[in-house]
Structures are given as C-alpha cells and as structure tokens.
C-alpha cells in the first residue's frame, strides 16, 4: 500500500471512529427521549433525524456549506470562538458526518429502547433505582444489540458516504481526502487498478462488518424476547 493510500485509509478510519463516538454520545439520549416521550414535537424531531435518509447528499452538503461558511450562522459562531471555518477541514467533515449518519445510529437505538417493556423499567423503580440508574443498569444493557447495530451502521455509513464529503471536505490529502473520494478521483484519472484495489477493499469491509453484525446480534435478540 502506498503512503498516499495509507494516509487516506487512516483518515477515513479516524473520521468514522470519531464520528461514531460523537454519534453515540448524542444519539443515545436522543433515541431514549424519542422512545419514551409523549411530547407533541416527537414526530417533528423523528422526521428531522430521518431527513438524511431521504434527502440527496448534495442537498445536505449544500446547506451545511452555507451554514458553516463565512456568512452562515454556524460559520460566524466558529469564527467567533476562534476555531476558524469548518468547510474543507477535518472538523467540518466530522460535523457533516455526524449529521448525515444520525438516523443510522438513532433509529436502531430507538427501536431497541422501544422494545423494552415498560413494566421492566417500572420494576427497577420499585427496586429503588432512580431514573438515571434505570437507564444505565436496565435500559442500556437490554438495548445492547441495538447499540451494536447503531455503532456498526454509523461507522460503516460514515466510511461509505461520498456526496456530502465531497461538498464539505473537498479532496485535500491528509485532511479531507477519504476513501470514497479517492476512488472517485482514481476513476476520473482512469487509474482503474488503484480504483479497483480500494473499491474491492470497501466491498470486503462492508461484507465482513455486516456478517459479523448479524452473527453477533442473533442470540442477544433472543434474550430480549425473553423479557416479554
């Protein structure tokens, strides 16, 4: 593997890992809220989370670019904080990844939380567990399969995204040039052998990830079924 390729692979993994971490930190409380709330704004919140599923990546990329640009509110805010501008930086890519991968993390988590019978959480309350205690000792362990699915999908989807990355990050080696963009560039330059190597690697990666996920999650699903 050439140095350039290695840098690209490492950057891709770093981006996906950091984004997944942030997604879990943000997405878990959001999914818990969505799973338990009876609030009137729940449909709106759920729809906003799901938007990246239906919108073309170019639309998300375009608006993120405007928001984070020098005249956008987010851009002005980051400049005011002294962080500079986000577009065409690694930080900008992380922000964009968190937004477009959000549904892939929130939805499996939300489904896992919704599958926990209310009476099990109430039982924990009658056994003196405070709400936070119930969340960490009952809800999270029971949602473990969903947590795993969410992590893997969030990671894999961040690795696989192309459109938003191209619009927000561009193609700066070592900063914003990730695998999907590199493949595109190789194809543009008619370097099919390099394109092949990366593309085949992605196919194998995706297959291994999904097979592992489905294998690991099967028995766990049985144990949740026993909660009924």
């Amino acid at each position, binding site marked *: 593997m050439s140095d350039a390729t290695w840098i690209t692979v490492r950057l891709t993994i770093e981006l996906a890992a950091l984004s997944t971490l942030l997604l879990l930190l943000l997405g878990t409380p959001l999914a818990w809220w969505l799973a338990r709330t009876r609030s009137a704004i729940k449909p709106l919140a759920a729809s906003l989370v799901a938007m990246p599923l239906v919108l073309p990546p170019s639309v998300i990329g375009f608006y993120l670019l405007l928001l984070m640009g020098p005249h956008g509110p987010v851009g002005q805010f980051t400049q005011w904080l002294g962080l500079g501008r986000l577009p065409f930086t690694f930080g900008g890519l992380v922000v964009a990844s968190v937004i477009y991968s959000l549904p892939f993390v929130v939805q499996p988590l939300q489904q896992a939380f919704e599958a926990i019978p209310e009476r099990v959480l109430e039982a924990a309350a*009658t056994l003196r567990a405070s709400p936070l205690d119930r969340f960490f000792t009952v809800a999270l362990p029971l949602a473990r399969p969903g947590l795993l699915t969410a992590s893997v999908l969030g990671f894999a989807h961040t690795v696989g995204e192309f459109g938003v990355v191209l619009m927000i990050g561009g193609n700066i080696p070592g900063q914003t040039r990730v695998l999907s963009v590199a493949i595109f560039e190789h194809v543009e330059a008619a370097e099919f052998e390099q394109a092949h190597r990366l593309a085949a690697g992605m196919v194998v990666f995706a297959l291994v990830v999904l097979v592992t996920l489905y294998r690991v999650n099967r028995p766990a699903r049985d144990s949740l079924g*026993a909660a009924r």
Partner: protein
Amino acid sequence: MIDARLTLARRDFTLDVALQLPERGITALFGPSGCGKTTVLRALAGLERAAGRVALGDEVWQDDATGQWRPTHQRPLGYVIQEAALFPHLDVRANLAYGRKRSRAADGLATDDPAASGFALDSVIDLLGIAPLMARRPATLSGGERQRVAIARALATAPRLLLMDEPLAALDAPRKAEILPYLERLHRTLALPIVYVTHAMDEVARLADHLVLLDAGRVRAAGPLAELLAQPDLPLARQDDAGVVIAATVAEHDRAYGLSRVQFEGGTLWVGQTSAAPGEGVRARVLARDVSVTRQAPLQTSVINVLPVVLESMQADRSTALLQLRVGHAGGDAGGDAGRAAGPTPVRLLARITRRSGDTLALQPGDALFAQIKGVALM
C-alpha cells in the same frame, strides 16, 4: 395504618377512593376488571399520579395539600405484577441483588436490624424455595418459578409494604397451586402488610384477612374478610360462589373415616382429612348454595355437619332467598351490638334456598333453626 385518599379522572371512569388499611395481614382489593383496583395499587406505588394523599404510618409518600411527592424509587415497597418483570440480562442471583443493594444503600444499616431479620436474604430465598435457581437466567425459568423469584426480589428489599397485582392471574391451575402455599407461608411468617389485587374469589378466600370491594372506581365496602363475606346485601353474595370463610383450628383426626374435626367459636365442623396437625389454624369455606335449613334438628340425615343457628336476615328475589345465619342458639338476643363489641365476632353463615321454601317454613328473623352444611372446603 396505610392511609390513602386518591382521585383520578380517566376518560372511561373516575377513581375516587379513601382507604384505611391495617398494617398487618393481607388486604385484598377485589372487584370486576376495570373497577380501578390496579390503578389504586399503581397510585400507592407512585407509578401513577393520582390526586390525594398516601401515607404509611407516619411516613407520608404523597400529600397534594403540602406538595409532597416521593417518586417510586424512594418508597420502601415491593411490587409484584402478573408477568414477573425480571431483568432478562441478569441471572436470578443478580435479580435479587439489584433491589437489595439499592434498598440497603438507601436505608443505611437499617436492614441489619433484628427487626428486619425476616428479610435476611437467605430466609427469603428459603421462604420461596428458589435456592436451586440462583444461577439461572429468567428465560430458562417456568412461569411459576419466575413469579417466585419476582416475589423474592421484592422481599429482598425489606419493604414496609408489599403490593401484588394479580400475581397468579397469568399462571395455569397447577402453577397457581404451586405458588399459593408460598404466599400462605409469606403471610404466616412476615409481619408485612400486603395489598393484593385480584378478581379471583378463591384467592381472596384463601389468603385475605381484609377485603376492599371496589366497583367502578369507588369503594363499595371494606372490612374484615369474614364479616364482608357474610353480608347478604353486597354484590359478593349474589355470585354463584358466594359463601363465608370461617377461621378454625384442627381438633382431631378420624383416620378410619378420613375426616378431621375443626373447631371454631361456637361450633365444630367435620371436613375431609387435612394434613394440618391438631391445634393448627385452618380456614374453612362454606358456600351459600351448600347450606340448607330445618326448623327441627334433623334426626336421620346423611349430612354430617348440622349447626344450630339463628336467622338474622333474609333477602329474597323472584325465586331464591339468601339467609344470613348466626351460629349458636344461646345468648343470641342478649348480646346484641354491645355483645359484638365486647366478645369475638360471632360466626355467620349464608344459606341460599328457594323463596318458596322460605315461605313454606314461614321464616322470620330471630327464628332458631338448624343449618345443614353439605360441603366444607378447607384451604
């Protein structure tokens, strides 16, 4: 004393109850489905927010007048529901430890008190016979085992009040028969007040000391079980399995005929031989439809149990009449209400006869009669 005044308006019914429950023994909340008994229990536990006041002794759990509200996890109670809500990701041992650890932390060292020794973990495990299950996962347990673990898990927190919401309703008859003896042991062993929601009369007759009859969100009647069951003017008395429960002690066994004689205030009954030893307490259930009356002591009868009684009241509808009978001929009129307050409550029976028989015998309150009892069930 458990004192609760709760009101709650729902779309389909309004709950409005005031309960004073004794701090000892099992109180059954009994009524048809939809009468609000589960809602009352959930409100006592703080799982449902009804308006009003809930206090256990001098410990106030909720008082809207002063704005007091303790969330469920700060109330020292145990809660057992129909489907044992065990934690599927923990084995039985860890399920028991879950509440015990937290309640001990909340109570400091209070649970090490000799007063709370009935709740030593070992004795709880022993009481419910779950020692062999400790390493098992809930998914591998039978329905009856799960329910026993759920009860043990609730008791392991050394609760001051145990709330049970139809704990046997999800079980088939053999599983039910498996659990009932454990509940009776619980009842005998622990000085813990239990509020027990059910719509099964056999569970009430077997377990309850006190009864609260709920109907459409309101308390229809409340009091000691034996008294309420013997009241002919309650909806209970109109049911096919209407009947009284008599607290008795075993006097002797007649092994040759497979019978046992049990004794109670004012009389004795022969029943099918029981495994209880002489001197042990038992409950005898006598259904109204198994009791008939005669004016003279029956001479040659196959009925083995004949008790002298005084007719107290008679309620008739088109074809049947329900008689309330007080056991014993002597001292009936002299006692009256004053006698009731001083001495033990007299034992009462209900008898369901045809209205025509009632007219033929020209029955009047105060008549001295003989009750022929065709069936007595020990429970």
